């Protein structure tokens, strides 16, 4: 295991900061007070825009009446958690949670497992048909849902897989697998070839190189691929709305819509459910987002 090549924080910034002598001349990266204020101003404004719709949803979810969203001022005086209690106790919330988790985790696991070896093969090896495979991987990225939804519907109903978790997982894999392969290819490309060559010199087979050297180094990339599949599967609307028929098997994306049609637009409950869904997903997002950024950009030999 060549752990010496594991990425470490680039020390350049710290060195520059500690060794730079104090000086009056303004250097690169230092700006005038006005420029700095302007940056803060723009960023604050952008943050407010980013934050407001979510914050507003949270605020509305505290109003007890279904038309409170039209009179937000009134919510302040009668704030209550009743909506949350109702959603957790009297709706199918936990059924939806179960379906969402089964489907998203299933897609994630299958997507990453199946795609990993292919990502490595297309990153390192030039075999006949390589270009065609890359092309297919790219083209499947751009399948509009409209291409597959009708034939998938017909095929799944023939196989009795409509309204079935496994059927939905299969459908999601059609997008998750090519996407993960494409993403992992990009990540493997950033791991230097020298590591493979070292492994080959030391007598590993191509498979050995992959499993014992590259996979451990590619953990951030695998995390990103898994995370992407999870989020896409979790947030997918079209297939889930069409293929899941019984309301205990709805994923959240479908369940949320049912508040408006079925229950006569109970917007307060809908907002509460939305918040309950958003909290764990966003928490998960923030947990992995460091990996996400490194996985999208960084390589294996910095530092």
């Amino acid at each position, binding site marked *: 295991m060549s752990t010496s090549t594991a990425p470490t924080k680039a020390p350049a910034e710290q060195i520059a900061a500690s060794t730079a002598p104090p000086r009056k001349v303004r250097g*690169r990266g230092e*700006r005038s007070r006005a420029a*700095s204020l302007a940056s803060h101003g723009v*960023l604050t404004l*952008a*943050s407010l825009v*980013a934050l407001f*719709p*979510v914050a*507003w*949803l949270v605020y509305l979810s505290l109003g007890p009446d279904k038309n409170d*969203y*039209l009179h937000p001022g009134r919510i302040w005086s009668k704030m209550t958690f009743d909506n949350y209690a109702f959603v957790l106790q009297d709706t199918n919330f936990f059924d939806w949670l179960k379906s969402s988790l089964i489907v998203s985790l299933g897609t994630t696991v299958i997507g990453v497992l*199946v795609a990993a*070896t*292919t990502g*490595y*093969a297309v990153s390192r*090896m030039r075999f*006949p048909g390589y270009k065609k*495979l890359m092309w297919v991987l790219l*083209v*499947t*990225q*751009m*399948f*509009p*849902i*409209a*291409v*597959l939804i009708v*034939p998938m*519907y*017909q095929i799944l*109903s023939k196989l009795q897989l409509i309204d079935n978790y496994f059927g939905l997982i*299969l*459908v999601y*894999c*059609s997008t998750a*697998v*090519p996407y993960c392969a494409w993403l992992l290819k990009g990540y493997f490309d950033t791991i230097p070839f020298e590591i493979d*060559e070292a492994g*080959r010199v030391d007598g590993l087979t191509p498979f050995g190189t992959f499993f014992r050297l590259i996979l451990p180094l590619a953990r951030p990339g695998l995390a990103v691929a898994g995370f992407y599949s999870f*989020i896409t599967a979790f947030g*997918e*609307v*079209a297939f889930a709305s*069409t293929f899941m028929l019984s309301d205990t098997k709805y994923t959240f*994306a479908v369940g*949320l819509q049912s508040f408006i049609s079925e229950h006569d637009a109970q917007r307060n409950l809908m*907002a509460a459910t*939305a918040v309950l*869904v*958003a909290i764990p*997903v*966003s928490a998960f997002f923030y947990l992995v987002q460091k990996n*996400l*950024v490194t996985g*999208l*950009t960084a390589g294996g030999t910095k530092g």
Partner: protein
Amino acid sequence: MTVAIDRATGKRRGDRSPRPGLGRRLKDGYQKHWYAYAMIAPVAVVIGVLVLYPLGYGLYLTLTDANSLNSARTIGVNEIEATYKFVGLDNYADILWGPTAYDRFWSHFIWTVVWTAVCVGLHFFIGLGLALLLNQKLRGRTFYRLILVLPWAVPTFVTVFGWRFMLADQGIINSALDWLHLPTPAWLEDTFWQRFSAIMVNTWCGVPFMMVSLLGGLQSIDNSLYEASEMDGANAWQRFRYVTLPGLRSVSSTVVLLGIIWTFNQFAVIFLLFGNTAPDAQILVTWAYQLGFGQQPRDFAQSAAYGILLLAILIVFTSFYRRWLNRNEQQLAN
């Protein structure tokens, strides 16, 4: 570059020895590359079964007049055989130049192109601006970044409903506009404002992805390039133009392509924002969905034909885009 080394296996490839016979080549190819084929086998199988087979089946459906009334289905215990028949290319002809083709296809097509161009442009420029701001040494930039990725962190189907509350007739946005004595448009009813709000919501949802990717691209640009250009007397704009932009080229060409594909295929935002209420604000994807599943009887054949047309548009576009990129790169190299 006539001889390159296969970096994983240390073998040479591309050398110019006389070509052996076909059988020999197949055997050689197999021996040389069998591990590569073994490694891509899982994905090849998955794509074949889950993508290519349905695609072929869908292609066949577009050549028929299948809808929910004549497809094979089960009602109770009765199984009804499919009775749809082969109609050749009639579906495509009808979509592209049949009666009222403008209302059914071309108006949606134009709106889809506008939607894609505007959304991706906004995503890219706002994302680039924010990434540049976040790339400087700035107090609290981690904090800003955490907040700015929020629209990406919260699932789209959640935030779209948040927007729906805000855009409702007497929702917060119109109340605020009213308070400022500005006109209060019917965001979710009037066609123009429907389109406007769809673009607005999608921009809000899509900027963080661009921002994070471009920020990653910015951070991977070697600092010494900036130092060198400064030594040569480049000002801030020149540093941006001749160091930052070329350094971002590979990242931005990828994310723009991805952004175009995703926006072109964006389903959730429009579907959840309007449901079935806004026929004029539907882009092609949601329109195809509506044909296939949002009406009775469900018109499977036309919906699938829309899907194939969409795919064709995207494939043509992508090949041109890649050719254009390649040409640009060659020009740079010369």
